[in-house]
């Protein structure tokens, strides 16, 4: 029977299927971090259980860690306890951990791929909703809660209900200055924050095939912002080349490759839903509201809620404009920014830093704002420094930080103040996401860089 890619991977991982019950799925890789794991390890201890497969498990410290002074003890005692708890749990249960200061420490979704642990056809989970990132390799990867983290630690499986499938075809070619971030922001604006709910999305089409691995990760990363637990892209030569020289690339590469080449949606397979987007029509895209679907092309205006027909959408837009301190009808390019954040599991990889550095090189950021550049992992930081990107940012007046989730979420020292407005390459513009009372506009690394130079939301074309 013809199958979609998601169905193939699903079926290959069924440990047990019984009528009227969820399928029991085997998990190939479990990623752990400090925030969603302590209660899971506690559960194991209470029940006297071991971690079934420490050799399929890996941990790092990312969410609550500082990005400055990482050689000193973490100043916030509650954060320190959480990190110390992860260290103690990993030591007790034999789990590999990359701690602050280690070259493989960093945002969990940057670490997996850079180590070559993320490979096509795998099932990958983590107690973090942006686990969908790994779908860029043609893996079925999704975020889970802490009860499920405990379940995977104990059994290396999860009981799951088979999701529906959605194809998003991105046809045509992107214009210069338009990036994968703009693709995904436009998709979310089109289908809404609940549009992908219950589905695994497969991103297809010419424009997706043309993307680098790192750009593909940006697209898959934000699948959850459209409500889809997982988003994936069929692996191809771009994928295989990316994995080949990574530390955990298969020793028997040919055997792996022979399998990876079977990972595509069969020609006559049917998706439950198909959506088509034309890449030629896309422009740099930014958000104006307080959920990731409230976005618009940078060259347009803050929408007028009165123009929205749907009562829910109108109410949400009215509330969002009040929170964001914006007037309906104002050009998005007139919005003055206080902080530019370049980083996160969405856009904290080396290509993102290179793209921004190219815009900024030899120039100074606006005196009215600050810019934080936070590499997604210590390895990315070292790579950037080897290329001299750190100097580009520092000479422009930006802050060059250590790896972590940083300002993507307000749980470490990098936060917005009340009323402070950010252009952020991260993934969520929720109220208070980057700090209580903070205001977030989601942007691509190119828009972040141009905005840093001009002080208002801008693209490189405006320079």
């Amino acid at each position, binding site marked *: 029977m013809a199958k979609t890619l998601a169905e193939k991977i699903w079926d290959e991982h069924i440990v*047990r299927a019984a009528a*009227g019950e*969820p399928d*029991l799925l*085997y998990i*190939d*890789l479990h990623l752990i971090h400090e*925030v969603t794991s*302590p*209660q899971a390890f*506690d559960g194991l201890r209470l*029940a006297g259980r071991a971690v*079934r497969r*420490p*050799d*399929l498990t890996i941990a790092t410290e990312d*969410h*609550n860690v500082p990005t400055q002074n990482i050689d000193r003890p973490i100043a916030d005692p*509650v*954060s320190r*306890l*959480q990190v110390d708890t992860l260290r103690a749990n990993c030591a007790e249960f034999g789990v590999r951990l990359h701690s602050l200061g280690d070259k493989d420490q960093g945002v969990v979704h940057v670490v997996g791929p850079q180590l*070559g*642990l993320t490979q096509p056809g795998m099932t990958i989970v983590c*107690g*973090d*909703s942006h686990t969908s990132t790994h779908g860029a390799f043609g893996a079925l990867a999704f*975020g*889970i*809660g802490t*009860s*499920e983290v*405990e379940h995977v630690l*104990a*059994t290396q*499986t999860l*009981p799951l209900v088979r999701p529906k499938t959605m194809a998003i075809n991105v046809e045509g070619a992107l214009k210069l200055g338009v990036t994968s971030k703009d693709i995904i922001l436009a998709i979310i604006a089109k289908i809404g*924050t*609940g549009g992908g*709910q219950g589905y695994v999305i497969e991103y297809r089409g010419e424009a997706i095939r043309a993307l680098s691995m790192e750009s593909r990760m940006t697209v898959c990363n934000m699948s959850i912002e459209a*409500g889809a*637990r997982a988003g994936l892209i069929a692996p191809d030569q771009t994928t295989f080349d990316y994995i080949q020289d990574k*530390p*955990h690339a*298969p020793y028997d*590469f040919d*055997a*792996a490759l022979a*399998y990876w080449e079977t990972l595509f949606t069969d020609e006559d397979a049917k998706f439950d839903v198909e959506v088509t987007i034309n890449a030629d029509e896309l422009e740099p895209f930014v958000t104006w509201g307080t*959920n990731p679907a409230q976005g618009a092309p940078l060259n347009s205006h803050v929408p007028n809620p009165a123009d929205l027909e749907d009562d*829910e959408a109108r109410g949400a837009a009215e509330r969002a404009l009040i929170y964001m301190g914006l007037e309906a009808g104002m050009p998005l390019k007139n919005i003055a920014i206080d902080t530019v954040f370049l980083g996160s599991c969405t856009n904290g990889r080396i290509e993102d830093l290179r793209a921004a550095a190219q815009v900024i090189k030899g120039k100074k950021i606006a005196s009215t704002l600050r810019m934080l550049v936070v590499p997604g992992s210590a390895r990315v930081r070292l790579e950037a420094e080897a290329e001299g990107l750190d100097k580009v940012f520092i000479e422009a007046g930006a802050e060059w930080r250590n790896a972590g989730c940083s300002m993507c*979420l*307000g*749980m470490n020292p990098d936060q917005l103040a009340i009323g402070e407005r950010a252009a952020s390459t991260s993934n969520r513009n*929720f*109220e*208070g*996401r980057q700090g*209580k*009372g903070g205001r977030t506009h989601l942007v691509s690394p190119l828009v972040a860089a141009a905005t840093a130079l001009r002080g208002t939301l801008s693209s490189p074309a405006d320079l």
Partner: protein
Amino acid sequence: MEKFIKHIGSAVPLRRSNVDTDQIIPAVYLKRVTRSGFEDGLFAAWRSDPEFVLNNSAYSDATILVAGVDFGTGSSREHAVWALQNYGFKVVISSRFADIFRGNSLKGGLITVILDQSEVEAMWLAIEADPTTQISVDLERRSVSYNGTDLEFTIDDYTRWRLMEGLDDIGLTIKNSDSIDIFEKSRPHYKPLTLPIRA
């Protein structure tokens, strides 16, 4: 986990859509390493506004939250479920929940009930007219009843059975550990291992 058969209580109307888990509990409250005490962080930003519905003493005994569409979007933090439970909620009603939040809630015994948006709106009006309105959520009958209105909801048989028996998934899975052993024997040799560490 406590068995859930039926719950009767009063409700609080949360007339907001797209309530993401960062609103349910902001990240700064996620640093505890226990499962308790998260009620402090529940809707923390909104609770500083005296007009916020949870601050209305008429609803102080509520154990059922009736929310707008797309409740629980965003982060996978199960702390959102714990915060609602620690605060005293037993049931959340909405016309649509985000997948991860719904999964987390049903694992932990917080019952999430999906009703049509028109039914949610009728319920909001009834609760606002009389905050003491008693709402009965019956998992056995798969029904929500109040003021003579009787609404049916769907929940899959397996999850309903597990909640009514108060069973946790891990115990159920371990009963099938033979099938896990068998599956592991057939895993391809080229699948990556995190150990030993390769530099």
